[in-house]
């Protein structure tokens, strides 16, 4: 039997860690409730992380700039006067910054994970469209077989899910306005979703995975209609499809 020894400060550390963990979880839950729209969530988290990195950058830059100015060499032959660190100070200079960096990392990771879940959990009430990408076009197929090329027509206010694959090289379906992209490739099916909001608006689709010579010209658009307009359009296209089927 070995005797249990308690490390000094162990209990305080546990309290701090527990506090940190519950704060992280609370902020995750909070973030999860706030963000139903990945694009809005993206802007929110980007701003938060931007503040975080700006603060860290400015702190380091100010310290470095201060040292550079304060400790200029004033006479030739002058030497630095820093003394070595004691063992305790050396350890502290690892543990304390390490803890601070790690805490910041975990905080950002928790926020990022929460937003990631928003991006990957597609709402059940959605419009599903199949996308086949190829050199150099975006070919959309709606559930009833209606097809469009380089124009994705969607109703406002309804989540749109794209199930994607490619017939040749890898492409990436990027929607800058909706802050989302995902590669499409042969042999695998990938997906993404987004929430079009405003009827009458058009949004750019552009390829972001180098796919061949004409990569930079592989663009299309998302056209947002009102629910009624969308229904009319889809019915017309479906009818056309039916006529075609009858004719052949």
């Amino acid at each position: 039997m070995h005797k249990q020894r308690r490390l000094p400060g162990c209990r305080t550390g546990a309290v701090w860690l527990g506090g940190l963990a519950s704060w992280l979880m609370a902020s995750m839950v909070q973030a999860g409730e706030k963000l139903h729209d990945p694009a809005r969530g993206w802007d929110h988290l980007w701003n938060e992380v931007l503040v975080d990195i700006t603060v860290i950058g400015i702190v380091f830059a100010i310290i470095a700039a201060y040292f550079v100015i304060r400790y200029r060499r004033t006479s030739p032959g002058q030497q630095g006067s820093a003394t070595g660190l004691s063992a305790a100070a050396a350890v502290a200079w690892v543990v304390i910054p390490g803890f601070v960096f790690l805490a910041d990392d975990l905080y950002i990771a928790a926020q990022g994970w929460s937003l990631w879940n928003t991006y990957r959990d597609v709402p059940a009430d959605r419009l599903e469209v199949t996308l086949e990408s190829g050199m150099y076009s975006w070919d959309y197929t709606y559930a009833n077989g209606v097809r469009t090329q380089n124009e994705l027509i969607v109703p406002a206010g309804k989540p749109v899910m794209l199930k994607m694959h490619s017939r040749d090289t890898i492409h990436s379906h990027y929607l800058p306005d909706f802050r989302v992209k995902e590669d499409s490739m042969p042999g695998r099916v990938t997906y993404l979703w987004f929430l079009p909001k405003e009827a009458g608006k058009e949004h750019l689709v552009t390829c972001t995975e180098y796919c061949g010579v004409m990569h930079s010209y592989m663009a299309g658009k998302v056209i947002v209609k009102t629910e009624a307009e969308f229904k009319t359009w889809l019915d017309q296209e479906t009818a056309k499809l039916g006529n075609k089927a009858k004719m052949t």
Partner: protein
Amino acid sequence: MNIKEWIFTTDHKRVGILYLIGSIAAFVVAGIMAGLMRAELSAIGPTVTANPTTYNVWLYAHGAIMILGFQIPALTGFFANYCIPLMIGAKDVAFPRVNALSVWLFYVGVILALLTFVIPDPPDVLWTGYPPYSTITTGNTAFYTFTVLTLGFASIIGGVNFLTTVVYMRAPGITWNKLNIFVWCILGAFVMQLIFVPVLGSAVTLISFDKYLGTHFFDPANGGDVLTYQNLFWFYSHPAVYVIFLPYIGVVFEIVATFAKNHVFNYKAAVYGGVGGIVLISGEVWIHHLYVSGMPDWLRIGQMVSTLMISVPVGLLVISLVGTLYKGAISFETPMLYALGVVFLFLIGGLTGIPLAVTALTLNLSETYYVVGHFHYVMAVAGTFAIFGGVYYWFPKMTGKMYSEFWGKTGFWVTFVGVNAVFWVMMDIGVKIGLPRRYYDYAQFPEALQSQQIMSMGAAVIAVGAAITILNWIIGAIQGPKAGNNPWGSQSFEWTTVSPPPHGNWPSPPSAAESWNPYAYGKR
């Protein structure tokens, strides 16, 4: 001095200088490619060439040559070769003839890369070579494969050589905890090269098998998987970023300690926490290059956490570096300007990497100009500034002569202004409108025009700065004034011999005194 002596040399210093000449030549060629791309992008629509394939070949050549022909060879070829035996008091590397083979292979690799511009079907697969494109393009993927294999092999045998050299050939008194930080960084870099280069070698070999021998490793129609390649490629190529980062931050440590005339702050934290931590974590973060590639969700989240944790070892290195300035006696010759420039550029580049570690944020940022701006700051520009600073720092050691301080500083400030004009604007436009990278034309983003023009002008400024720098070296090497053996008053061991050192480095095997330390400034 005859040319045959140089070609067949086994002297680590000459091998190093051959690496330097080759890598600077590669830098100039790859820089011209960047200039052509910036010219092309200065207006919407065809500008310099009406053929997108030509642009894609520039893009391929710029990336592949800058990384494989300039940065890695300059850092692990030139600096390692020139400095390591001198820093540890050895007369040469452990295997001098193998060392000569490695520099020959490097030249073969550079020649293969340069042949891109004369063959009728140049490779257009970018430096990443992703299938299926690389297996169906009419471009010559085999050139890509053989360039990577040749340079990779040169690097592997260099790795074996340097690990052996540092372990077995340290002079008496130069103990592990008295090694220069730079030596530790090179050790770390070569450990990673030995682990990861073979993986890259297998990946690029398999694409040529697929393309020319009819195998189906990456062909889903026949049971292959396109993502396998990306995993193999980035399993090497993310550590490759640290193969560049560690040596360059090592060079910066040497410069900062010498010009601040100060101890390295918390040496052991930098070595064991910083260098060791980076080597340890380097192989667990590659998925962050595949955040939008359709990888399993759990991997994308798991490696978000491991990627963010890189901030811990990197933070320790930065604290050590900035801490070395504390109570120093700082002077600002050209090498120090470059070193401080690296600290500034690295702060921007490192911190702008944090959003890219976050999977959800990368769903928007990936493959945009933001990414390109970020990695140019953190790797390309900071690395190049460290290389320039290091060449200036060891210039009197190599040549026995002094460069022009005025032109050195002028070159620094011109380049510094140029790189920020290019890459700050690049990140900005990447976030604001999501402008995608690797675009020959950007008709769908007319609002990017002004930023593109600022970047193109910035590129011209960089070209002027780099030209001043390279000319300054050439002129200094030919007609610079005598520098003396230790013009910086450094304590580091390489400055204890004459400049330039003779074959064998010291007349008789040296040893380090008990009180010696590469950073023993201040009190005696």
